C-alpha cells in the first residue's frame, strides 16, 4: 500500500519510513469506516433509514473515499425523497471513483427520466415553500403544499413529518397519527415520527380512558332511559344534532374564519402596497413624459430658429453669387438666381442690397432674353423663343421692347394653334402698351383671328 501522507510505497511497517505517518492508525480509521458502513447497511435492510444515515455519514467522515458508504447514503436519501442530497452524494462518489462505480448508473437512471426528476424537485420546492408558509403562520397553505409534495414524491419522509406536525398544531390528532404511521412504514426509526407518536399517544390515552368511563355512564343511562318512547328518541337525536352543529359553529368556524380573515387582511395589505407602487410609477412616468415633451418643444423652437438663420444665410449667399454673375456679365443666371431668393427670410439690410442689384440685373437679363428670343424666332425655333420671351417679360415689363415681347408670344401661340392664349397676349399688348408698334400689330392679328 501507499502512504496517504507522502504516497511512498509501504510493505509491512506500522509507520512510514519517509514521513513517519502512523499507518496502523490509518488502517484503524479505514476499519472503523468499514464497520460503520456495515452497520448502516444492516440498518438500511431493517428500514431504520435515519439511523442508517447517521452511521453512513459517520463512515464517510472517517473515510471520504468509502464509496460503498457514500453510494448507500445517496440511495437512502433517494428513498426518503431527498433527490438533491442523493445526487450530491453520488456525484462526489464518482469524483473519487470514476470507473466501475454504481453511482454512475444511479445518476444516469435519474437523468434519463427528466419528467420524474422534475416531479421530485417540485416536491422539494413545495416542502421548502411549506416551511416558509408555516413561518408566516399560514399552516393551511402549508398543508396544501405538503399534500401536493407527498403526492408527487410518495416516500418524502420529511414532508410527512411536517404534515403531521401541522395537524398536531391544528389539533387534528387522527390525521397527524395517520401521517406518522406512514413515516414509520418507510423509516421505522425516524426520531421525529417516534417522538410525535409518543406525545400523541400519551395525550390520547387518558382521553380513551375517559371515553370508556363516559361510554360506561352512557350505557348506564341508556339502560335507564329505555323507557323513552320512539318519539322521544327522535327528539333526542334532533337536539343532539343541533347541539353538535352549534358546537361546530362556536368552536370550529371562528378559527377558520379568523385564519381566512388574516389571509384576506394580508392580501389586502399586499394589494394596497402594489396599487401604491403602480400609482407612484405612473406618476413618475407622467412627469418624465411631460418633462420630455417640454424639452422636445424647446428643441423644436431652437431648431426652427436655427433653420430660419440658416435660410437667411443661404439667401444672402445667393445675392452675393448673383452680384458676382452680374459683374461677369452672366445676366441670365444672375436673374435666375435672384428670382429663386425667398424675400421673406432675408434681413432688411440684405433686402436693400437685393433691390439695388435686382434693378440692374433684371433690366439686363430682360434685354438679353428678348434678343435671344428674337433670334430663335427668326430661325423658327419657337420653343426656345417662347422660353426667352416669357423670361424677358417676367423680369421687366417697362422696356421699349416689352410690347413686342407680348406680340411675338402671341404669334408663337398662334403658330402652335393655341388661339386662346394668343388672343390673351395680343389683348394684353393692346391694353398695356397703347400706341406702340407691338400694340398696333397685335390689334391687326387679333382682328384677323376674330
Amino acid at each position, binding site marked *: 500500500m501507499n502512504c496517504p501522507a507522502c504516497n511512498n510505497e509501504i510493505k509491512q511497517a506500522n509507520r512510514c519510513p519517509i514521513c513517519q505517518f502512523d499507518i496502523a492508525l490509518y488502517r484503524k480509521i479505514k476499519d472503523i469506516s468499514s464497520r460503520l458502513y456495515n452497520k448502516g447497511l444492516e440498518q438500511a435492510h431493517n428500514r431504520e433509514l435515519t439511523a442508517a444515515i447517521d452511521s453512513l455519514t459517520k463512515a464517510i467522515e472517517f*473515510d471520504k473515499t468509502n464509496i460503498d458508504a457514500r453510494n448507500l447514503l445517496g440511495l437512502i436519501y433517494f428513498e426518503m425523497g*431527498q433527490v438533491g442530497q442523493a445526487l450530491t452524494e453520488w456525484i462526489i462518489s464518482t469524483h473519487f471513483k470514476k470507473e466501475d462505480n454504481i453511482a454512475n448508473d444511479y445518476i444516469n437512471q435519474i437523468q434519463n427520466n427528466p419528467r420524474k426528476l422534475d416531479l421530485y424537485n417540485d416536491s422539494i420546492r413545495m416542502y421548502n415553500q411549506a416551511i416558509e408558509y408555516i413561518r408566516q403562520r399560514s399552516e393551511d397553505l402549508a398543508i396544501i403544499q405538503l399534500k401536493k409534495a407527498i403526492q408527487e414524491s410518495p416516500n418524502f419522509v420529511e414532508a410527512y413529518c411536517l404534515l403531521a406536525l401541522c395537524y398536531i398544531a391544528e389539533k387534528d390528532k387522527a390525521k397527524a397519527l395517520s401521517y406518522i404511521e406512514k413515516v414509520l412504514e418507510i423509516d421505522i426509526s425516524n426520531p421525529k415520527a417516534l417522538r410525535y407518536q409518543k406525545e400523541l399517544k400519551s395525550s390520547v390515552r387518558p382521553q380513551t380512558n375517559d371515553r370508556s368511563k363516559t361510554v360506561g355512564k352512557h350505557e348506564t343511562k341508556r339502560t335507564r332511559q329505555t323507557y323513552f318512547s320512539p318519539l322521544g328518541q327522535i327528539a333526542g337525536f334532533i337536539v343532539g344534532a343541533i347541539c353538535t352543529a352549534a358546537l361546530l359553529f362556536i368552536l370550529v368556524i371562528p378559527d377558520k374564519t379568523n385564519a381566512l380573515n388574516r389571509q384576506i387582511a394580508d392580501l389586502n395589505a399586499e394589494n394596497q402596497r402594489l396599487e401604491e407602487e403602480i400609482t407612484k410609477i405612473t406618476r413618475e412616468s407622467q412627469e418624465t413624459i411631460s418633462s420630455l415633451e417640454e424639452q422636445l418643444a424647446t428643441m423644436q423652437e431652437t431648431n426652427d430658429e436655427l433653420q430660419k438663420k440658416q435660410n437667411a444665410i443661404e439667401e444672402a449667399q445667393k445675392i452675393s453669387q448673383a452680384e458676382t454673375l452680374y459683374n461677369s456679365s452672366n445676366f441670365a443666371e444672375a436673374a435666375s438666381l435672384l428670382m429663386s431668393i425667398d424675400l421673406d427670410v432675408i434681413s432688411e439690410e440684405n433686402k436693400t442690397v437685393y433691390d439695388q442689384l435686382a434693378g440692374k440685373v433684371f433690366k439686363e437679363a430682360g434685354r438679353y432674353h428678348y434678343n435671344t428670343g428674337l433670334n430663335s424666332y427668326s430661325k423658327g425655333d419657337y420653343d426656345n423663343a417662347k422660353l426667352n420671351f416669357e423670361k424677358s417679360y417676367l423680369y421687366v415689363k417697362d422696356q421699349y421692347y416689352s410690347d413686342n415681347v407680348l406680340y411675338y408670344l402671341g404669334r408663337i401661340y398662334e403658330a402652335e394653334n393655341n388661339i386662346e392664349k394668343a388672343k390673351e397676349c395680343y389683348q394684353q399688348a393692346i391694353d398695356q402698351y397703347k400706341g406702340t408698334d407691338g400694340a398696333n400689330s397685335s390689334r391687326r392679328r387679333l382682328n384677323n383671328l376674330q
Partner: protein
Amino acid sequence: MLDFKEELRKFKPILEIDHIEEAIQSNEVKDILDLLTQITKNIESKPKE
C-alpha cells in the same frame, strides 16, 4: 407537550436539484484521514528538540 415552534426549527429546507452544483462546490470534502495527514505534517515541520 410538543412545542410547535421548537419542533419547526428541526425542519430545514431540503437541497433542490438546481442547487446541487453550488452545494458540492461550497463543501470541501474532508475526513479524519485528512486531519491525521495534516497533524502529521505539522509535527514533521516542527524543529526537533
